[in-house]
């Protein structure tokens, strides 16, 4: 097995394990930490697929900004393990079963598609490069790009307004 395949497996296991830890941690701060680890693993996957721009953006935006925001809010509310409310046991079980059922259904539905032996190219490929993405973004998709800036503006205004103390 080549290095890239090996890396794929390591990163996959890391991602799954840390995702599970996110869901099952008692302390919310731990959940945040584990989610950051997950994001790093996924960024690793992106690099493996030579989607360089996305890998970096993932780290900067998700792990860097969004998770920090989460941490700020958690710290603000002073949440820790003792104040964590416990869920009704039966509902937890039902939730787990439903999620598992979803997993099973999707896997069994999609495992025999005609695409299953198609390969996705690792390591090589120029479409993940910043140059290519930039060219496409500012030529074909420039309008969505501008609109997304308006989206940000409205989100910012909304967040500020909601958070005002009046």
């Amino acid at each position, binding site marked *: 097995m080549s290095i890239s395949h090996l890396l794929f497996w390591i990163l996959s296991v890391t991602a799954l394990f840390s995702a599970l830890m996110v869901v099952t941690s008692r302390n919310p701060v731990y959940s945040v930490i584990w989610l950051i680890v997950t994001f790093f693993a996924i960024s690793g996957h992106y690099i493996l697929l030579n989607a360089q721009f996305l890998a970096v953006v993932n780290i900067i935006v998700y792990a860097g900004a969004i998770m920090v925001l989460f941490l700020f809010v958690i710290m603000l509310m002073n949440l820790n393990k003792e104040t964590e409310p416990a*869920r009704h046991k039966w*509902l937890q079980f*039902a*939730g787990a079963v*439903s*999620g598992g*059922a*979803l997993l099973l*259904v*999707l896997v*069994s*539905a999609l495992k025999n598609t005609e695409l299953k032996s198609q390969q996705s190219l690792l390591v090589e490929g120029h479409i993940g490069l910043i140059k290519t993405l930039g060219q496409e973004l500012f030529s074909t998709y420039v309008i969505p790009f501008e609109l997304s800036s308006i989206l940000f503006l409205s989100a910012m205004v909304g967040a500020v307004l909601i958070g005002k103390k009046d």
Partner: protein
Amino acid sequence: MQASFKLAFLIPLLPLIGFLINGLGRNFLSKGVSGIIASGMVLFSFLLSLQVFSEVREGASAVINYFDFIRIQGLQIPFSFQIDALTSLFLLVITGVGFLIHVYSTSYMHDESDASFARYFAYLNLFVFSMLLLVMGGNYVILFIGWEGVGLCSYLLIGFWFKNPAYTKAANKAFIMNRIGDLAFLLAVFWLIIKTGSANFGEVFSFISDNQGTPKFTSTDITIVSLLLFVGATGKSAQLPLYTWLPDAMAGPTPVSALIHAATMVTAGIYMIARSNVLYSLAPLTLSIISWVGLATALLAATIALRQYDIKKVLAYSTVSQLGFMFLALGSGAYLAAVFHVMTHAFFKALLFLGSGSVIHAMGGEQDIRKMGGLAGKLKVTHATFLIGCLAIAGIPPLSGFFSKDAILLSVFVHNPIQYGIAVFTALLTAFYMFRLLIITFYGSFRGTQEQLHHLHESPWVMLLPLVLLSLLSIAGGWIGISAVLTEGADSLGQFLSPILPTLSHAISHEKELMLMGSTTLLVVVVIIAAWLIYSKRTEQQSTGILRVFENKWYIDELYDNIIVKPLARLSAFLREWVEPRLIDGLVNGVGRSVQYTGRQLRFLQSGQIGNYVLLMVVAMVVVLFVQFFIRK
């Protein structure tokens, strides 16, 4: 078609119109008007029947179809009248005797209120209409309409004074027992329709005579149909075991007893069997059953009548007994003799009932003969006509009863000598109890109260005239059917009915016949003299031993009560108290309760907890994906 046949539909229609007028206008009409309307309608029907009769005598007969009563694929039943000799004879009896009884009632019922009086005559007219429909019907279905109608009118008239609960119970009993017979009748009609494809008399009888013995209409079919029809007849004509309603039916007004329970309705069974003689001639087993049932009924009723103290009850049991004779005649194949006896019995029994009505009227409502006596002096006409009626029923020549009863006895002798012996014994009992009744009521010293004695008076002429006319008919009515042994060619009745009923042919010599006739007459005279000796001098002793059984009607009412009525009442109580509230109410209420419960449970879906909502969302999505990918390929 003959002119009178064209107007034949008026014969039942006029009484129906009378019913409507009297029934709807009972709050507006005076007694005189309603009485005249009712009697007049029957009189017109009688005149039309006379016209029909004269044309039938010249040999005409017809089946007239008016309209389709039932018309479906494979079955067509028209509303039709069949007018032939048998029909016209019955028409005369029904309308003639009916008219006399209507006239009698105008005086007998004059104590009633105006509305009640009109109601009575409305019911009476409705009864005449139904009876006419019965005898004129051209197929079993129309006959059944009349059959049901007379049952209904019997119920209405027995319970005429409906404020008295005992009378209404008697009316219920009559109707319910009739119903049992009706069920059997209906089954027979259905069987006939299935097998022969029609209910019309002509078609059914020709089918039966063509196909008897073949798989199309086997002997089992014949036996079953004839038996079922006979069971229907036992209900209507009060034979064993469905006879107990008739004595109770005496709760109705006396003219009703005369018309319905002596002269007409109870003879419907005999008419029906006589009409179906083609069928019955092919069913020897049923015929022997009929004859034995008739004989047993006759004997049983005669023994009970020996020890009854209500004047009407004696006559009621006498009717049952005479009907038994008629069935005995039918069972011996002597349809003609049975119809003959129907006619003569109508005359003298109506006479006897109306006479008893006159006595009751004179006694101010008293019906117990132990309180009567010595009435012959005060009620001359009533006494004379009653005596004539008793002589007729006993069978003294040359009154009508002698000829008809003798025709029956002769046929029975040829058929089965044992039955003949029992029948003769029963005839002697008949004479005995009738004269017992006559003597206790009219002779000796008066045993009632002073007030009743004071009140005694002869009935008005309106009531006496029908008595006189009926007594004349009782004397002369038998002269149309004189047996060949006495006078050759005098059997005009037999000749008249020959297209429909087989004539009586006797396989015995003339000498033997005369000897039998003479010996029975002699015995009857002896019995009458014995009754005179026993009853004219002393009062009757208390009943002991077997006489006690007779007095208590052989305890048959009590038997029926215990075997049938009480279990049914228990079953009904069980259903009422257990099944109805727990099962049926439980089921219905349970549906309501389960809906409420489901609603209460479903309410929890809307808990407001967004966690639950999300769970449901995921579950739904899983289900949708599952269905999409795995079930809907």
